[in-house]
């Protein structure tokens, strides 16, 4: 069994230690069944969450990225999630611009006592990822010849229909 | 401030409650509020329609709102709390799902209008201070209890006007026109509503309890703002007396009739003659009080 070369879909979870990691534990203690896609990375606070982690994970082919922290106003560090939600929302809105599917990234707030809510979050997000299938990532294969002729500002290729060269605008 | 208001009288005000209609129009005219009757209005559907499904009620009531919108009016006033509930419910249904609402209505609708009761209109557009200033014959010497009935302020989330358990809007109007307002614990107790026809003993029981409390707190009259309540308290007072083996003879006036009296409007413009329990006892008390006041001021 080689875990790297199978068709299993994977969600990378970044969970704050105080609320959501505890919420995931609570769900486990309560035996709330969840799909097996999620792999959790424990971080102290969603404030630790650099949006680059999200971009890098999706570029590398993680099928989904789930970030979860304490509910706003309940942050163990008082304000970490206030900063986090700005950064995460920004990256969520940015992803589609570079062709990464924003549906593959979800962020939410789950407290340590909300085992049931955690089960729901994981189940729903897993269903979304199952539906989307494997993530091709960014630049997974060498750039192929049949990539769409969306054209650069380097002149010369402005002859195709899909030309969106900024210069042509 | 825009003074023109769309007027939805409702079916009762064309029939048994015609004096409510008459006094409402007279009072508004006297206070400079222009009422424009919604052209070709229809029945709001009342409880029977709502009982079928809230959407039917919303659509029936909604036709009137749409007509008001067509007439370019943005505030609809109805004196009847039953109609008020139906009209407000209609707006709520519209906001929930505009498309579904318009399907049921069978026409387009913008939902711009606001619906208010006569009490809300008097308090918001005129206000107690201005009302008091407009009074020509203050109703001093009259103990009048305000009876709101159940629908005017309930449920609070829906009415969004006055306190659901201890409303004071009618109290403030009564005070403004010079009445003495005793604490009346049964302001919002139900009078039996439509069961006057189908289950008469219920009404005689409930209404009897309300009249009894009014007498206990020393009321010379009851002020109401609902045609159905008025019917049960006034028209059916004889039935109530018979069932309870006691005599009340307590006049039950629409708030607009009382305001009209204070404004000095003619009794016939207020339809005082249409009341079943004669308001004579109340009127004489008021006259006495004002005579006393007059003679005192003359003496001084």
């Amino acid at each position, binding site marked *: 069994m080689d875990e790297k070369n199978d068709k299993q879909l994977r969600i990378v979870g970044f969970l704050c230690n105080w609320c959501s990691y505890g919420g995931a534990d609570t769900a486990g203690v309560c035996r709330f069944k969840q799909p097996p896609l999620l792999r959790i990375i424990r971080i102290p606070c969603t404030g630790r969450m650099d949006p680059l982690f999200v971009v890098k994970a999706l570029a590398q082919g993680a099928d989904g990225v789930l970030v979860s922290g304490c509910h706003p106003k309940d942050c163990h560090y008082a304000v970490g999630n206030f900063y986090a939600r700005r950064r995460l929302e920004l990256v969520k809105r940015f992803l589609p611009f570079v062709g990464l599917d924003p549906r593959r990234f979800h962020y939410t707030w789950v407290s340590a006592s909300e085992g049931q809510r955690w089960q729901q979050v994981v189940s729903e997000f897993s269903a979304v990822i199952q539906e989307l299938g494997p993530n091709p990532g960014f630049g997974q294969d060498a750039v192929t010849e049949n990539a769409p002729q969306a054209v650069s500002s380097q002149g010369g290729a402005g002859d195709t229909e899909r030309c969106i060269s900024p210069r042509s605008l | 401030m825009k003074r023109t208001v769309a007027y939805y009288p409702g079916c009762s005000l064309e029939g048994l409650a015609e004096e409510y209609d008459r006094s409402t129009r007279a009072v508004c005219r006297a206070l400079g509020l222009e009422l424009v009757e919604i052209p070709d209005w229809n029945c709001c559907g*009342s409880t029977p329609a709502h009982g079928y499904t809230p959407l039917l009620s919303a659509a029936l009531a909604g036709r009137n709102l749409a007509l008001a919108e067509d007439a370019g009016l943005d505030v609809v006033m109805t004196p009847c709390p039953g109609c008020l509930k139906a009209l407000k419910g209609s707006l709520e249904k519209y906001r929930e799902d505009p498309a579904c609402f318009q399907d049921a209505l069978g026409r387009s609708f913008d939902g711009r209008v606001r619906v208010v009761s006569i009490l809300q209109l008097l308090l918001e557009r005129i206000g107690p201070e201005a009302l008091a200033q407009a009074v020509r014959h203050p109703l001093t010497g009259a103990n009048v209890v305000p009876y709101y009935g159940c629908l005017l302020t309930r449920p609070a989330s829906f009415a969004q006007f006055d306190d659901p358990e201890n409303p004071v809007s009618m109290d403030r109007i009564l005070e403004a026109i010079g009445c003495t307002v005793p604490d009346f614990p049964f302001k919002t107790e139900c009078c039996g509503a439509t069961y006057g026809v189908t289950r008469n003993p219920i009404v005689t029981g409930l209404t009897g309890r309300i009249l009894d409390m009014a007498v206990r707190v020393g009321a010379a009259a009851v002020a109401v703002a609902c045609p159905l309540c008025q019917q049960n308290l006034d028209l059916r007072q004889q039935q109530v007396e018979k069932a309870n083996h006691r005599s009340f003879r307590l006049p039950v006036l629409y708030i607009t009739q009382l305001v009209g009296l204070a404004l000095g409007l003619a009794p016939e413009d207020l339809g005082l003659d249409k009341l079943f329990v004669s308001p004579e006892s109340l009127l004489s008390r008021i006259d006495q009080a004002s005579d006393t006041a007059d003679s005192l001021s003359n003496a001084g």
Partner: protein
Amino acid sequence: MKNGQNLLRIQESRDAGFVERVERESGQRVSQCYQCGNCSASCAYTHVYDFPANQIMRLIQLGQRDMVLRCRSIWLCAQCQACTTRCPCNIDVARVMETLRVMAVEAGQVSEKDIRLFYDEFLKSVAAFGRVFETGLLAAYNLKTGKPLTDADLAPQVLRKGKLALMPQRIRGRKEVAAIVRRFVDAQPQR
């Protein structure tokens, strides 16, 4: 227990989907009721009900569909909203009662047929004229219930005051109104 039933075989008479259906159609979370009794304490009609309001809620929770739909209380509720206003669980009890009436009609289990009849005549009047014709409504009700003397004692004084309309008000848009009513009333059985 009223209605002469002192033994309720809960499972035998249980309709498992009933709570869910009532909740869906009324939009109210009846299952959250914890039986404080405030609805019954506040209701002006508890004394004429066969089941007080809190017991209606309880019967719904237990899925006792037939007992609920056949009861008289749901028809005697006057929609005065006292229960709704005071429910600590924010349940619109009056709305639940109204929903149960509709379900009772659908199930053909109406206990208080005359009240239902009054409502039907009311709507018929609206559909016919656009507004309610009080005199006609009363006459039709009296005729169909076979209680010709209902409120007859009031007739003389009403006549004396000139308050009894003898002809209905017909509005111009009555066809529109009739169309609205028909959209629902005709569609009623399927709903």
